[in-house]
């Protein structure tokens, strides 16, 4: 077992554990912290996989922006941030389904021929690919962001002459 293999196994283990903890945490803020850790772990995995640009992007966008957005969402909906989630009972069926799915995918992974021809790409190759061959993807991402921008501005802006929300909620 080479150090690299060990490192990857440890990182993947941390990713799985943080993801599970995020879903099982009893307080929502802890969930956000765990998911932040999950994003950072994935970023480390990308560095090990010689995708340094993606690693930085993951840190900036996911570990930075998305985590903060999720924290905002929690702050908006909870008067007190440290609120315990109602622990929903987990039946056996979802667990079995998830286990079966995981087993299928792991078995699938075992069957994949272990490729060795892996190479590190520089950012030039990435940009050449992204801006020439697959420029249409960026165009489409722009359209997605346009509709998201228009939609979010519309939904989030103040309403003229709207009644303020009643305190304590509507029955």
């Amino acid at each position, binding site marked *: 077992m*080479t150090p690299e293999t060990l490192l990857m196994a440890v990182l993947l283990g941390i990713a*799985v554990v943080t993801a599970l903890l*995020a879903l099982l945490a009893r307080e929502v803020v802890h969930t956000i912290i765990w998911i932040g850790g999950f994003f950072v772990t994935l970023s480390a995995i990308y560095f090990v996989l010689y995708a340094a*640009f993606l690693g930085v992007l993951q840190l900036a966008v996911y570990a930075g922006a998305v985590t903060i957005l999720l924290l905002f969402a929690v702050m*908006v*909906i909870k008067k007190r941030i440290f609120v315990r989630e109602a622990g929903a009972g987990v039946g056996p069926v979802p667990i079995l389904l998830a286990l079966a799915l995981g087993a299928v995918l792991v078995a699938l992974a075992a069957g994949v021929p272990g490729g060795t021809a892996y190479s590190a790409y520089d950012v030039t190759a990435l940009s050449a690919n992204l801006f020439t061959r697959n420029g249409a993807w960026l165009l489409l991402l722009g359209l997605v962001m346009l509709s998201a921008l228009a939609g979010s501005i519309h939904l989030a802006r103040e309403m003229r002459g709207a009644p303020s929300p009643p305190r304590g909620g509507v029955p």
Partner: protein
Amino acid sequence: MIPFDDILAGSGILFAVGTFGVLTRRNFILLLISVEIIMNTAILNFIAFSAYAPGPSILGVTGQAVAVVLVGLAATEVAVGLAIVLALNRVRGSVDVAKAMDLKL
């Protein structure tokens, strides 16, 4: 040299964790996080497959290009989700939104 199937198995387990979250959690934030876990699994897969792709570099890096697009897409989606929650918060009060966000099947 990292064995390729390790990464694929790891992403498979992560996908199962995300699915478990979608199936069992009923809170909007937790559902959103489950979806983000699945999305990250997809990104991880694209990067891993890209790293092991045979052939000329410009083709092999396609997986990383998809990953770049997906990171942008996921952030956009979360922003829209937050906007919807804000709008709901304005119409209902805080407490009630927390109740409404416990989605029922």
